[in-house]
Structure formats: structure tokens, C-alpha cells
């Protein structure tokens, strides 16, 4: 990107953010979504040319801003949902078998058939589209599993309940139907041209409600499988510490 184009791109995002805040509010999900999309966009630019300090400075600012906004927009206490935390360090969550069989089992095979295991940074981009949001889990065997259908804005904002297979809303437990256990779950975006060079992810899974330690699992997984450094990995945590006092 040229110097002028970076200025123009940042200015355009600033203008759109002002419009979004004016129409939807300072703390709106529209603003959070826009900041997240801006981060993906600027990381894509930064991935192609790492020399522009304005991009790196804006990325750093966005990381801090989104971190706070994610925590503020999650629930203020653990929700009463059918999953257990079997371990905090390392984190391991298990979804309830009876509930899964009743609500999700019928569409589970279809989702599994559309799910891939990410094992290296090159083949990952042969299976997934860069800069698109996907549902992922890191399972109990520390595999990174991704459902290959990208999400649209409406699905991201509505909590994905509009994404359906055989009229069943797709949910993270469907990626791990055998044991229903994960170490992390949420949405993931891969960035890069021929190889993954950056990742933007979150722990947005209402079914598993990952504890803060799951963000560390995502970073470790990206180190191990994709060869990335922390500076090139964003992971935003949505859920409060299960043992903390409610806000």
C-alpha cells in the first residue's frame, strides 16, 4: 500500500466509525463489529507490507480497544448452560451428551464432513478463504478444527443462530460430536497470501463459554501449527473468569 492509500484507508474507517457511533451508539455491537473488521483489514495490509508504522500503531490500538469492548459485551457472570469445565489449566470443557443428542446430533455428521483439521500454514489457505470468519474449536487432542462455511455479518451479529444445517442451528459442539470436549472455541480469521501469516480470533462460543485460559490455548495452537509469534495473533476473550465476582 502507498503512503497516501494508508492515510485514505484509515480516514475512511474513522469516518465510518463516526457514522456507526452516531447511529447505533458508543457501546453498540455495530461498533465492535466494525473495529474487528478494521483490524482484519489492516492486518491484511500489514501482512503484505510490514514497514508502515501507521498500520502497526493502529493495529496495536485496535487490539487494546477491542479487548475491552469484547469483555464489556459478554455476559457479566457464567451462564447456566449444559457444559462443564473439567479443568481450568489447561482448560477443558465438555458439553452435555443428552442435550447434544436431543438438539444437534441429527445434523452432526453433515457438519463434521464440512470440517477440516488445520495442520500447517500453507494447506490452511487451500481450505479456507483469507479474511473470512469461521467457527473453530481446539479439541481435547489439541487439534484445530474449523467448519469450512464462512459466516456473514448477520450470522456474526445474531450469534450464528441463522447458520443452519438441516434446520438445526450450527453450534461448536457439532465439531466434536464424539467426546464433546474442547480446550477453546470461537471464531477465527486467517490472514495471508500463500501461507497464514496472521490470525484474528475470539472465544465467542455460547455453548462452551471458554474461560480466559482458552485464549492462551489459541495462541499456543497458532505457534505450534502455524509458526506464528504472539505479535501476529489476536485472540479476544468474551467470557468472564468463571470464578470471578460478577461485574
Amino acid at each position, binding site marked *: 500500500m502507498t503512503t497516501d492509500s494508508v492515510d485514505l*484507508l484509515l480516514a475512511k474507517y474513522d469516518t465510518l466509525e463516526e457514522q*456507526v457511533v452516531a447511529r447505533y*451508539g458508543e457501546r453498540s*455491537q*455495530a461498533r465492535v463489529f466494525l473495529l474487528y473488521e478494521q483490524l482484519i483489514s489492516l492486518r491484511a495490509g500489514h*501482512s503484505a507490507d510490514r514497514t508502515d508504522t501507521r498500520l502497526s500503531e493502529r493495529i496495536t490500538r485496535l487490539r487494546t480497544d477491542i479487548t475491552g469492548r469484547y469483555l464489556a459485551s*459478554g455476559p457479566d457472570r457464567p451462564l447456566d448452560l449444559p457444559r462443564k469445565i473439567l479443568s481450568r489449566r489447561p482448560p477443558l470443557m465438555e458439553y452435555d451428551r443428552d442435550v447434544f443428542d436431543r438438539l444437534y446430533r441429527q445434523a452432526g455428521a453433515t457438519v463434521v464432513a464440512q470440517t477440516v483439521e488445520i495442520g500447517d500454514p500453507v494447506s490452511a489457505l487451500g481450505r479456507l478463504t483469507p*479474511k473470512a470468519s469461521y467457527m473453530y474449536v481446539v479439541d481435547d487432542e489439541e487439534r484445530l478444527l474449523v467448519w469450512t462455511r464462512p459466516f456473514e455479518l448477520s450470522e456474526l451479529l445474531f450469534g450464528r443462530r441463522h447458520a443452519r444445517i438441516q434446520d438445526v442451528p450450527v453450534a461448536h459442539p457439532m465439531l466434536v460430536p464424539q467426546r464433546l470436549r474442547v480446550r477453546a472455541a470461537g471464531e477465527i480469521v486467517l490472514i495471508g497470501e500463500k501461507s497464514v501469516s496472521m490470525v484474528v480470533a475470539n472465544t*465467542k462460543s*455460547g455453548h462452551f463459554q471458554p474461560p480466559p485460559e482458552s485464549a492462551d490455548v489459541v495462541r499456543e495452537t497458532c505457534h505450534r501449527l502455524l509458526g506464528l509469534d504472539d505479535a501476529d495473533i489476536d485472540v479476544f476473550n468474551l467470557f468472564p473468569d468463571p470464578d470471578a465476582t460478577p461485574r
Partner: protein
Amino acid sequence: MTTITDEFARIDAITTDLLALDATVEGHEALVATQAGWTV
């Protein structure tokens, strides 16, 4: 290779998506909500 055109096109796509979502009552409520849609 990522180009500036790609990223400007992405802003345009975001704007289009926001407007389309805002056109429905449910969509507008999701946009102004202060809580994420994590309840599925």
C-alpha cells in the same frame, strides 16, 4: 497480493452489509445491542 483496492472494497462491503441489516427490526436491534450475540 493484498491491494488497497481490496481493502477499500471491504469497507464498501461492510457498509452495504450494515445497511441491509439495519433495514429489518431484528437487524437494527442487533446493531444497537450492547451485548454480543453469544446466546446460541
